[in-house]
């Protein structure tokens, strides 16, 4: 039972990371390699913001910390788009992906420079909800992770399917020029996409940091999120959920039962297997393969 909850919580984190990658991909066909770094930087920002409001993550100070982090991360996403990605419209998608690799390197260095490579944790919701006889426990943050993930995905699915902005997202992803010719300001769409993606990254990072330690090596989870997104299909939110859970389950079980070293390679082995069988992801659309 405790195993199941751990897998669900880890899977939710990976699914949230994958969601951020899928949002940017659905809007602009760009694969964001900096997503892990964005998540961890967001978590560090949350941690530092908590100090601004009194270092106790309860009640009102918690809400203020959340508000600051949410606003800062969304704004940062918009800035990344406006300053960098906007200039890459029309260039091949691989160029934009390489620019995100550059952003990842800069962010990783920023963690070292700004927070001096301290390993920190976010003390949020560590109180147990259920305690088992064997000594394991389910904490509030575990529950919160799963609930937040479900809520986020539900909101996102409704957004893409039923709102006008969501339709414009999907249209811009397919054909930016046609969208522009139909009165849609694609700069605004893509800026919103990036804002949403970085916000979800911070969300994932904070939830991750509440359950484990944050360190400059943490951004490696970004690759797990990326593999989860690819396994599920880069243009599929459903795939992000499934991929996140699959990768989390495989990683966790491998770490517990076989060896921790192999569990680091497991996401990539799953990815290779899926690439051999269904390269466009388990829930993705085939045409995507030819669009990059």
């Amino acid at each position, binding site marked *: 039972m405790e195993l199941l909850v751990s897998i669900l919580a880890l899977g939710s984190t990976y699914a949230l990371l994958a969601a951020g990658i899928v949002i940017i991909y659905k809007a602009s066909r760009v694969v964001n390699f900096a997503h892990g770094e964005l998540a961890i930087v967001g978590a560090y920002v949350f941690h530092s913001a908590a100090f601004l409001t009194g270092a106790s993550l309860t009640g009102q100070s918690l809400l203020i910390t959340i508000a600051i982090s949410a606003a800062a991360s969304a704004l940062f996403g918009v800035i990344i788009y406006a300053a960098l990605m906007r200039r*890459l*419209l*029309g*260039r091949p998608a691989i160029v934009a992906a390489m620019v995100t690799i550059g952003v990842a390197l800069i962010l990783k260095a920023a963690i070292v420079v700004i927070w001096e490579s301290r390993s920190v944790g976010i003390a949020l919701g560590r109180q147990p909800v259920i305690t088992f006889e064997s000594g394991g426990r389910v904490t509030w943050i575990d529950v919160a992770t799963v609930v937040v993930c479900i809520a986020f995905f539900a909101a996102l699915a409704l957004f893409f399917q039923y709102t*006008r902005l969501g*339709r*414009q997202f*999907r*249209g811009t992803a*397919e*054909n*930016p*020029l*046609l*969208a*522009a*010719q*139909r*009165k*849609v*300001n*694609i700069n605004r769409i893509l800026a919103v996409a990036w804002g949403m993606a970085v916000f979800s990254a911070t969300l994932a990072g904070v939830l991750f940091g509440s359950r484990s330690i944050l360190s400059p090596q943490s951004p490696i989870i970004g690759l797990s999120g990326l593999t989860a997104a690819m396994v599920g299909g880069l243009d599929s939110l459903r795939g992000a959920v499934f991929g996140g859970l699959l990768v989390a389950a495989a990683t966790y079980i491998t770490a517990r039962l076989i060896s921790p070293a192999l569990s680091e390679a497991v996401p990539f082995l799953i990815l290779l297997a899926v690439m051999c069988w269904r390269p466009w992801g388990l829930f993705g*659309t085939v045409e995507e393969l030819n669009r990059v």
Partner: protein
Amino acid sequence: MNAHVTSEAQLLNVRQLEVVYHDVATAVQGVSIEVAQSSIVAMIGPNGAGKSTTLRAISGFLPAEDVKVTDGTILFEGSSLRGLLPHQISRRGVVLVPEREKVFQTLTVQENLDFSLTYKARPRRDEVYAYFPPLAERRTQVTGYLSGGEKQMLAIGMALVCEPKLLLVDELSLGLAPRVTEEIMSILRTINGDLGIAMLVVEQNAAAALRIASFAYVLEGGRVVFKGEPERLLNHQDIREFYLGGSKEKARSYRELRQYARKRRWWG
């Protein structure tokens, strides 16, 4: 209808347009076109004449594309369109129906029409379903699976929903059966009559275009080589020979056909 009384009163007034691709290839040079209020103007000509480029120049390029308008003025309702982004131009009322990639393949028909639908424009969308009955039957179908004719209807419908004052239609007959082309062309004429939307129609199918237009331009090699009312074009020797399938007098055998050798003189 004489479209040349006062140039200043024209809805669209393009003067001496020059468009250059990749800094080196001039696609359009010295092209001047006018479209009067609520009129249908045709642009005909062979492949690569610069017709689509002219339409794209009017409707705006994305900043990332390697093409520039290097000279000329484009005035719509008196104000310049040069340098504006495509979404700004379409918000002013100039809407392009592109030649390729004219609909969102992954969205349904309904979603395509609702793409940038404002509350105000809802009646227009219902009018689109009235003009194009096949679309009404396929509201929830994913557009990628529609036939070519239905996609073209949807593309025009999407453009209409943007409440345009000027519709730019790029090569609508490409890939369509002649009967479907006729059908859509006559619907365009009906729309022009009902809603008063001006249209600039680019066509390789000169005969079809000249049937609905009140004025026409002939482009070749990036330049306007002839212009006039359709009657004038239909009776012109060069137009007849090169765009309308030969003269009406006698049947010509291939031996007598020296189209490849005869230069176009553009007299008359």
